[in-house]
């Protein structure tokens, strides 16, 4: 019997061609969970709530052996969450996120959507209340954190209903989030971080100060890491329309240094404030990105 294909380890662009966000996210999560010995997001709940049919990938420790012995059928025991874990996924929907270096890749936004959906699915399967906020210059979608059935579908629809925005005002959006996230929980930010670092860090630090566990996924297209292009080109910022004429070949190393410095600066600043920082390129398999959270 051939080994099942693990979508979480395939090229994101190839995986995305298999279908919509739901299909991709479910496929990724299935593969991801199959590859784990133990869920990193295992909840703290211990109170049984219901049974459900076993699905490949479910952990055997939750198998109800009694039912199996009686009826020779596989059922998984599900528990009521008793912890305060509430996950809020923040997806940057600014215009810069709708960019990709080559048509063969996903845009940062598309990558972020699928990663957010997969992450949400994992969390919801663990009975963690999961919500979603999309934002550009302003907050576009707010789906409060819930754990009830159909929450994941709502989250996915929220992602799909959020169009590509214009500029990015992360500071304002994050400030508004602080009001929405009254209870302590986990905040996952998916963004290309192309905004003012100090202002954004102020907001993130505030969340951290409120007791939230903050995780930042810094998304970048590989073409944003290594500068390439025609001998001479006018690069234009899609958000501000500011442009500059450069010769990529002669500026490549200086640019790469600048990017490395920027990433290092984000990482250092986040670490200083207890914020988890992860640099993710859009050609990284989704499973690898999810693995960063373990």
């Amino acid at each position, binding site marked *: 019997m051939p080994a099942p294909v693990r979508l979480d380890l395939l090229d994101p662009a190839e995986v995305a061609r298999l279908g919509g966000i739901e299909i991709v996210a479910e496929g990724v999560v299935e593969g991801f969970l199959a590859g784990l010995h133990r869920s990193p997001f295992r909840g703290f709940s211990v109170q049984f709530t219901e049974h459900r049919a076993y699905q490949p990938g479910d952990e055997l420790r939750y198998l109800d052996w009694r039912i199996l012995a009686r009826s020779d059928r596989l059922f998984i025991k599900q528990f009521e969450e008793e912890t305060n874990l509430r996950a809020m996924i923040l997806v940057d929907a600014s215009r810069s996120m709708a960019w990709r270096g080559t048509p063969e890749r996903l845009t940062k936004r598309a990558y972020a959507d699928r990663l957010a959906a997969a992450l949400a699915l994992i969390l919801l399967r663990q009975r963690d209340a999961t919500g979603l906020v999309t934002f550009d210059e302003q907050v576009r979608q707010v789906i409060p954190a819930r754990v009830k059935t159909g929450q994941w579908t709502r989250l996915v629809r929220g992602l799909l209903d959020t169009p590509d925005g214009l500029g990015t005002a992360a500071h304002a959006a994050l400030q508004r989030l602080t009001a929405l996230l009254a209870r302590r929980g986990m905040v996952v930010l998916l963004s290309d971080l*192309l905004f003012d670092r100090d202002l954004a860090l102020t907001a993130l630090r505030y969340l951290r100060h409120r007791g939230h566990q903050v995780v930042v996924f810094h998304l970048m297209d590989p073409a*944003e890491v290594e500068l390439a292009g025609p001998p001479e*080109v006018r690069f234009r910022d899609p958000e501000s329309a500011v442009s500059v004429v450069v010769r990529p070949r002669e500026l490549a190393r200086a640019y790469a240094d600048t990017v490395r410095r920027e990433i290092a600066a984000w990482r250092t600043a986040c670490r200083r404030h207890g914020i988890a920082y992860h640099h993710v390129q859009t050609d990284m398999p989704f499973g690898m990105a999810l693995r960063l959270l373990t």
Partner: protein
Amino acid sequence: MSFIHPLALLGLAAAAIPALLHLLQRRTPPELDFPPLRYLSEAERESARRLKLRHLLLLILRTALIVVIVLAAARPLVRVEGGGAHEPTALVVILDNSPSSGVVVDGRPILDRLRVAAHTSLARTTAADRVWLMLADGVVRGGSRETLLASAESTTAGWQRLDLVEAVERAARLVHAEPLPGREVHVLSDLQRTALAAGRADVPDGVRVLTLAPGRAVPNRGIASARVTEGAAIVEVTGSGAATAQPVPITIRIGRDRGASAARGLAALGAAVTVPLPAQSIASGWWTGEAALEPDELRADDRRPFVWRVAPPGRVTATPGAGPFVAAALAVLRDARRVGDGRDVVIGDIPSGARSVVQPPADPALVGQANRALAARGVPWRWGETGTPGPIVAPELAIIAGVQVTRRYRIQGAGSGERGEEGVLATVNGEPWLVRAGGVVLLGSRLDTAWTALPATPGFVPFLDALVNRIVAGEADVATGEGAPRVEFRTRGTDTIGATVFGPDPRESDLTPAPATVATAAFGGKGRAEVLEDARFASERFLGTRRADFSGVLLVLALLLAAAELGVATRTR
């Protein structure tokens, strides 16, 4: 600096290509979205200074590369001290192949050394030069380098003398007229002192006269002249060097065509020796002979031909007015069969007959009548006032030279009174005493001891012989010319009317070289002329315009520039 291919410099316009490309490339770059522009701007801001310098450096390198390649293609010539090519030069090579150049020194003719120097000078010329070759004949030969090289190679010692001062002046004027950066005259000569005429060549500014220093001088003896007069050959020996002090034997050969006979004598340097000719040469007719020395290093002047004519005995009549001394002398000549009876020549005090020897009338009252008779004959001379006594001066009549004249009439030209030296055979106190005009010979004194001591001297009879057989009949026209030793006769119908004797100029026998200071002064003075030994002559040749082809260095520089450009262009930070 000059260029072999100056038209290639038009390519320097291509040096603007990098700048133009730089400007044109900046016009319409493609436009692309790039979200992390802030990183890009920061990187550019940090690299702006470096990039500007890099762009400037690349522009300079590329422009310099094109300039250097174009310059290399134009083949620049740069002034150098050592070897190398030279700027276009107008050059006259004076190859002195006069007879003296045939002298053998150290086993080979000196002309060989001169020819090698000429070959080297000509071989060093390029197509951009204007070159001429001047030989001893004074003809300036132009043409291609190959043609002139062939001319120089085939040059042999000639028979014409070269006046070096005049030759250098002509050559200097020739090269000065050429609009070329370099102007040189190379003088390749044995540099005889006698070849430098008095005076100094007028060498214009900017013309260099390089003279090859003469080699070792050797002693030489040569026959300066040979002629026959009064039954004897007079041979003059000339030469140079200490060894010429001793008298040398001379051999006279006569009548090559009639069975040669020989006579010998000893001659000292600078002196004329008279060698009596054998009796058979007294017979009438044209005679040729040759005076020869023992062979020495210069063979060209070791022999010299000569020619003379012995006229048939004249038929002479003496009128009573001729006087007793003339009658007596004619009797002697008649006995010796030097004259005969007849009226071919009439001696008297008035012109009569076809040819007349006329002496002034004894009676002063008849002088006027005699002058009118001379005028009637078309003689352009007249007797004038009585002149002062004095000795006879007659370069061509040695037998009467120095004889005292006590009484005489001044012989004056008719009309203006002055006739110059034409027809004057002898003078007294600088005034004509013996003149010839057509068939009339006019004497300033009567041939009488009351007028002159001549009738009482031993030379009187030979003088009268010469007068009636040679002088009044007209001297045989014997001319001299420069050329290979030979005799050429001139004829009119079946008669031989004259001859030309060819031989080298006597000055060619003096091989004494001119000191360097004298030659330098004669060829334009210091700053213009130099006398140089072989090695220095070779190094100084074209020195004023010597150039090295700089294209090789430029190509190496171009390679270095290309490597530098490649390094800067591929370096990304």
